């Protein structure tokens, strides 16, 4: 478990891409062996920070694909700056990662 991130300076904007490893169960799928529903298990919140300041926040539902991919653009950071990420799922399990602007 770790959030993989990439941040690349393009002109004046930094393109940030991140990938969170997570099953993202919808809670609607039925286990073929037992016939029971597989409980929902998904990332709920993702936060991106730059220099200790929160710059991006996303709320995810179970309809986001397995291993969620998110991308956004930042104004301000320069090459060498670190963008850090943190996430939490509906079981309260947290994950984190970081990317250095290239």
């Amino acid at each position, binding site marked *: 478990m770790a959030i993989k991130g990439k941040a690349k300076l393009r002109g004046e904007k930094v393109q940030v891409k991140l990938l969170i490893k997570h099953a993202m169960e919808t809670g609607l799928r039925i286990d073929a062996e037992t016939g029971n529903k597989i409980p929902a298990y998904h990332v709920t919140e993702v936060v991106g920070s730059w220099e200790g300041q929160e710059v991006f926040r996303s709320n995810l539902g179970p309809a986001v694909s397995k291993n969620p991919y998110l991308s*956004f653009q930042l104004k301000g950071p320069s090459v060498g700056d670190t963008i850090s990420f943190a996430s939490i799922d509906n079981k309260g399990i947290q994950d984190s990662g970081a990317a250095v602007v290239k």
Partner: protein
Amino acid sequence: MNLLNQSRRILLKSFGFCLSLPLLSEKLFASWPEEAFMSTEIDKAIGELYGHPPQASDLVKLKVPDIAENGAVVPISVSTDIENVDSISIYVEGNPNPLAATFELSPYIVAAVSTRIKMGKTSNVVAAVYSGGTVYTATQEVKVTIGGCGG
């Protein structure tokens, strides 16, 4: 004395625990809008999130494939030229709970986000942009050849 000291320790520990737990987790993660995610209609979900009814707008640019071969992974991009955007959210009309994701923007963010979503069947996809008390939306139909909710 020993007993007194011990109970004081326990008291201090439990107090410290209670204090640190909400500080650690709730500060960073506390705002998942459950009502909006559980809503079964797009308009209700938008109302829960923003408290305003949506209005269609050309200023919201929604990029999704016309045909998605695999409904489990549908790439989607939303961008807009509207200034001072507070939030962007994505809805799939045909899903049991339409709201897929929300993005809360800051002044450092350019109003352009991308992600990948699941679609159970062919339906409309709606992108909503919230700025200055108004909800602007764009809608596009995506045909799904293989559903995203199967095994």
